[in-house]
């Protein structure tokens, strides 16, 4: 029996929605095999990974805590990816955003005021935006590949943070640990559910996702982003400027990453430390793709990824599974997603069957 692969005349809608599910199933199946190979009980470990975090209030709240930055960054990246702008330095923009917000928090340390938190958010967004402006400028002015520059700047950003927390911003009463003072009360995000770490940032992230969805689906700017990404020549024909779109999407992505950094510093961490995130800036790339670059899809994808983080931590404790397993799962998920996307654009036909049809008719 022969297979024939043909491009579909139009992208398949059902498959577009089904592939994330297919990819997740394949990832779970691969996880089963991986755990077997590692000598762990697959069922038990998968249960720890995927189910047990959902059984407690605290687990659910943690899901929100970890999903919030992923949603913020993922939405920003997805808007860029739609325009074919490959900002992969969100981790760096997040770091600079957190530094800017931390600067505000430390400058007004001990002071009271409802304005401090908003000021931190503005500073954080400006920080991330300014840092994303560097690759945007280099790309639009000199045509420098933004993938490489934004990534290189991530390493630099982490070193800047390290300079600060090991040096001038180190808490003098911190037993020489590389960390700043704990932020004061008015620089900490309010908690939504008493007794958990779920903070206001989660709601903001949800609001941002909805706003981004409206932007992309209902406005000319959203249409412009889409056209620039899919057909640059058609964009020029339409009167849309490619460079302005690069600026717009990069700055937006940077600001949202900066906001995510602010929320991390002012939320679950409450200070600046050398390693602010377990790589949210990179995981958000997977989130963006898994969510089909659609803001609402990204909310779901971020929850899935958050689950993998919490599950990873659980499995680390109960099954002494290395934390790196989370990264393997995330990478695998993206592979499977990219692979199953084939079905969205191509259709596979059984040639033998087709022949029969032809002769029959």
């Amino acid at each position, binding site marked *: 029996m022969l297979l024939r692969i*043909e491009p579909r*005349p*139009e*992208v398949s809608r059902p498959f577009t929605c089904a592939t994330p599910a297919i990819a997740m199933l394949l990832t779970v199946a691969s996880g089963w095999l991986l755990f077997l190979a590692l000598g762990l009980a697959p069922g038990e470990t998968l249960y720890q990974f995927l189910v047990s975090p959902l059984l407690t209030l605290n687990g659910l709240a943690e899901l929100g805590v970890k999903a919030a930055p992923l949603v913020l960054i993922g939405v920003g990246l997805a808007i860029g990816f739609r325009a074919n702008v490959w900002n992969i330095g969100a981790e760096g923009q997040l770091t600079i955003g957190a530094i800017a917000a931390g600067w505000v928090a430390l400058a007004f340390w001990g002071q009271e005021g409802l304005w401090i938190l908003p000021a931190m958010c503005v500073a954080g967004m400006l920080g991330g935006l300014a840092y994303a402006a560097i690759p945007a400028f280099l790309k639009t002015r000199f045509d420098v590949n933004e993938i490489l520059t934004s990534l290189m700047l991530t390493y630099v950003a982490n070193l800047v943070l390290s300079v600060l927390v090991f040096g001038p911003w180190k808490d003098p009463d911190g037993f020489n640990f590389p960390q700043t003072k704990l932020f004061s009360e008015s620089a900490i995000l309010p908690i939504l559910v008493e007794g958990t770490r779920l903070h206001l940032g989660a709601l903001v992230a949800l609001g941002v996702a909805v706003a981004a969805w409206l932007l992309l689906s*209902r*406005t*000319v*700017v959203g*249409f412009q982003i*889409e*056209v620039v990404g*899919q*057909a640059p*020549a*058609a964009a*020029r*024909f*339409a*009167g*849309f*400027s490619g460079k302005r779109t690069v600026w717009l999407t990069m700055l937006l992505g940077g600001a949202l990453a900066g906001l995510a950094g602010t929320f991390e510093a002012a939320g679950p961490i409450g200070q600046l430390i050398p390693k602010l995130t377990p790589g949210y800036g990179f995981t958000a790339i997977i989130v963006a793709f898994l969510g089909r670059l659609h803001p609402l899809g990204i909310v779901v994808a971020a929850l899935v990824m958050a689950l993998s983080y919490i599950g990873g931590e659980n499995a680390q404790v109960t099954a002494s599974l290395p934390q790196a397993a989370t990264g393997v799962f995330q990478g695998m998920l993206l592979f499977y997603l990219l692979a199953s996307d084939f079905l969205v654009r191509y259709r596979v*036909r059984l040639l033998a069957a087709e022949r029969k049809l*032809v002769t029959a008719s």
Partner: protein
Amino acid sequence: MVQHKGAGAARLELRGITKRFGSLTANDAVSFAVAPGEIHALLGENGAGKSTLVKGIYGLLQPDEGEILWDGQVVHPANPQEARRLGIGMVFQHFSLFEALTVVENIALGMERGTDRKALAGRIAEVSRAYGLPLDPHREVHALSVGERQRVEIVRCLLQSPKLLIMDEPTSVLTPQEADRLFETLRRLAREGCSILYISHKLQEIKALCSRATILRGGRVVGSCDPAVETARSMAQMMIGAELKSLARRKSKPRAEPRLTIDDLNLPADGPFGVALKGVSFEVGAGEIFGIAGVAGNGQNELTQALGGERQIWPGKAVRIDGRSVGHLNAERRRLVGLCGVPEERNGHAAVPDMSLAANALLSARNRTGLARGGIIRRQAAHGFAERVIREFGVKARGAEAAARSLSGGNLQKYVVGREVLQTPDILVVAQPTWGVDAGAAATIHQALFNLAQNGAAIVVISQDLEELLAITDRLAVMNEGRLSRALETTDATIEEIGLLMGGAHGAPVETTAQQGSIQNVA
């Protein structure tokens, strides 16, 4: 079944070749034969299945059914290497050359592996001298003219002493003079015993060159004839299938006030392979259709972009609409002052392939027809506008939500032209309006342009199809290396005159007289 008269074993014989792509049958039981030394035309409209058929002969596609006989033996060339070993050479319509590689490297790629490149360079020089196809083996291809590139392809075939040479629409990129030189080479090859399968839809060429023609329509052989005894008209009828409507030439109108004025337009080249526009000037009056002819790659794309606003021009007075300077405006703002355009490339330029027709309506019609207000998209309005274009231009599509990619070339072309025409622009700039479009769609598009002109719009048509320009324009001018010739009244213009203008500063005619005067005399 088409029998070839006279000769014994045919060089090439096809028996019942069928090739399907999904539900489309590109070739349907095609049979014909080519004798040794014969120049055999394969005639048909765009989409008649000519290219698919020869790809099967050259081993690029595998026919689903049927037999290929080579000197009486059944063969199944699985890839081009095997076809070349049999003695089949092919020159592609869109050349299969590599810009960044030298001539000798390009040719080595078409030979068996392990050819010594030094020795090859010598043989290239030899063959190109022998056939009057001058070539420098060590130049990189991107530095060559279109005519020279075609020579590279031909020399590549000749080096393998082919017994059958397939030429796919070889003159579509040549000036009439360059085409004449090509015909000489082909006649000479035929005299030496090489068969030539010549694919074209240009009737005059086939009459001049070929001793036999097989006519394809909708994937089937619909006839076979001797082009020398047929008229162009009778062959066209076989090709198109219906009785040919006489193309009535438009009567020139008295000149009105110019609506579009291009005044000393200069534009630097965009990138290493671009063409700079140098001092382009012309005027188009209300109700006038102005044609711009020329061989591809002489600045037509740049001119389309400069007129449509994809590239802005400072000072803006180089482009004026009703006296108002608009050169500095981008495409969106030029549309608002009444200038709409249709670029040459449908997919990815005039339309976004993966977006719906309704979304594609937003691309260029969002402001003039109110499909978006205050930055917010009005989806219903966009949908409605797309449906109106589909209805009024007879676009065959699933509806306004069908992806642009799912439409056939002709239907998408009707859609993108219709989208601009229904915005009732004051000025319409349209490039290659009927490129790759069937006769019916071409008639619809031409009619729409006539109607628009009738209502007082000024229209610029940029096309490589001289017959089209001669049929629909009032005046025309020729582009060559970024310069525009003086405008000719279409009724007074002759093909020869236009051809000379197209050749312009190409240098080819000069070379010809210097190196092969005898051949030129024959022509």
